[in-house]
């Protein structure tokens, strides 16, 4: 597809079959990610699922083994200078030269971005205020707390008003007030017409913020679509909380083998939570298995599964 057709299709970012391996060790395989312009797209997955590897490949910090990356319809070539002019990136737990003050950090990176000096002075001041660091502007970045470093990183990512923001765990290390402020800022940025790719391992955050989501698990794309579609896909899951007279490993193993079960987790001694992918009454089967293993099913309550539980089962099973 040519650059112009991508522009008309309104894609900010498209990643196709992206694979990155480290020698014989695989990192990510065939990752697919499509981000529409003007959306806040969640990039969800547990720690170690390959989100940061994917992002680093997009930013040219890691070299892809195979696959295709297009940003605003263009394939980043060489050092991807033109692409990076339109992209702001916040790495997970960003680091800046310790000796530079917060204000100097913005001025330094702004100059490298090629922002004219006068505009840069105004922009850096406005950005420090936007991320709530105006009072710490003259403090050395090395003395910033983890949360302040993240906010400074967000300000750096916003330098030059990029069209696409790639944010890797932007609320990591922030206090609750900081989290709320960052979320408000991201919503404002999207309302201004920017596109945001928000990488997170927290479902609640993505659910609250994003209209679209791509879920990654063990280096592979598990699902991608709107939050609504993800909800529909997961809907119908139920959890049975079962208490046994005694729960040995044999009985536990048998329970795990029941058809339609997504996950079995221990809640307390002799109490388990059984997550079903579909609404199937598992109670008679549990009672029968208990008797077969010399135990008794004392109680078993049926509950609607929370989205969090269903997401966990999704990334665990890779459905």
């Amino acid at each position, binding site marked *: 597809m040519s650059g112009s057709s991508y522009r008309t299709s309104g894609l900010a970012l498209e990643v196709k079959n992206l694979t990155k391996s480290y020698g014989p060790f695989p990192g990510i395989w065939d990752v697919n990610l499509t981000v529409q312009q003007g959306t806040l797209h969640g990039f969800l997955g547990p720690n170690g699922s390959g989100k940061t590897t994917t992002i680093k490949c997009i930013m040219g*910090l890691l070299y892809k083994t195979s696959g295709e990356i297009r940003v605003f319809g263009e394939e980043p070539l060489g*050092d991807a200078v033109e692409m990076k002019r339109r992209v702001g990136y916040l*790495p997970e737990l960003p*680091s800046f*030269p310790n000796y530079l003050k917060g204000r100097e950090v913005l001025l*330094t*990176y702004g*100059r*490298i971005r*090629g922002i004219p000096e006068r505009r840069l002075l105004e922009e850096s001041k406005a950005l420090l205020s936007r991320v709530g660091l105006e009072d710490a502007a003259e403090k050395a970045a090395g003395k910033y707390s983890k949360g302040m470093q993240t906010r400074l990183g967000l300000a750096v990512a916003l330098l030059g008003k990029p069209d696409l923001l790639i944010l890797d765990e932007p609320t990591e290390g922030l206090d609750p007030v900081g989290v709320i402020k960052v979320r408000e800022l991201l919503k404002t940025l999207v309302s201004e017409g920017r596109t945001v790719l928000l990488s997170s391992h927290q479902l609640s955050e993505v659910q609250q913020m994003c209209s679209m989501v791509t879920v990654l698990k063990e280096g592979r794309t598990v699902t991608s679509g709107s939050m609504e579609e993800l909800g529909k896909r997961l809907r119908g899951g139920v959890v049975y909380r079962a208490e046994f007279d005694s729960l040995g490993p044999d009985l536990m193993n048998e329970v795990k083998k029941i058809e339609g079960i997504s996950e079995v987790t221990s809640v307390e001694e002799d109490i388990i939570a059984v997550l079903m992918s579909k609404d199937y009454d598992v109670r008679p089967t549990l009672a029968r298995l208990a008797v077969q293993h010399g135990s008794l099913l004392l109680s078993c309550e049926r509950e609607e599964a929370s989205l969090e539980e269903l997401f966990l089962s999704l990334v665990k099973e890779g459905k």
Partner: protein
Amino acid sequence: MSRVSQTWAVVRYELAWDMKKKRTYIIVGLFLFAAFVYGYLLPTINGKSFTTEPNELGVSFSSDLWWVLVHNLAFNIGVSGVFPLLIGGFIAADTIASEFDYNTIVPLLSQPVRRGEVYAGKLLEKVLLLLVVSILFTLVVIAGSEVSVGAQSHLEMIPLVIFAEFGAFLEYTALAFLVGSLARSGSMVLGILMAAFFLILVSVLILAAYFGEQESMFFLPVANAAFLFNVIPFYIFQPWGVMVLQGYSIIAGPTAPVAVTVVSALEYVVAGLLADLAVAFAGGYYFFRRAEVKG
């Protein structure tokens, strides 16, 4: 934005970092103090000074093995050679490696800048910084010698002396860029530079002991920087246009000292230095270009 202004922005980034570091001032301060002591004591120890002709101070040569190895080679390479190692190595060790050590390479390479411009900007900043240090060093050494033995002569040769110091510092900067891009660890860079220094020192001493002092030794990496730092100014002021290589060797026994022209010795030193700089900077760029940011 042009490549030149992009590279200049990286120079400013690097300079801002260096100027904020206490370490820079401590290294340069200690170095200048040592330069003064060096300039003060050198003429009184072996008659060598940057601006005093050695024959005026009565330099004596000997075919004694101890003199060749300890007084001549070990001092010229081992003691004087430590200066460029400390200044060039310590100042440049952080330049590439620490960007990876502290992950500051991530925000830097995420900006719309080519890796070549980052590398060139960092190199240019080090060139400017070391040029200033070389000028200061030469002036402080001359001041030390003035205090020690009185007014110095041949001051018109100062630019050549500065060039010699600068070349010696740049040798270690180039090695720091190469090792930094390859190992990506600041402490490893210093360790490898020191190991290279001692390895070459020991190699030169062994070669000199067995085969006699050879002008081809000046071609060896690291050794050429040490010779350049210490001996070139001495050669410049050799009034007879030759330098003397000690003839003693374990194989041949004591022989008459060999006179080689200063120009010939300089050719070996400069050729060795240029080869080192080309290989180290090009190799450093190759590895920097391919470096992945995994952490």
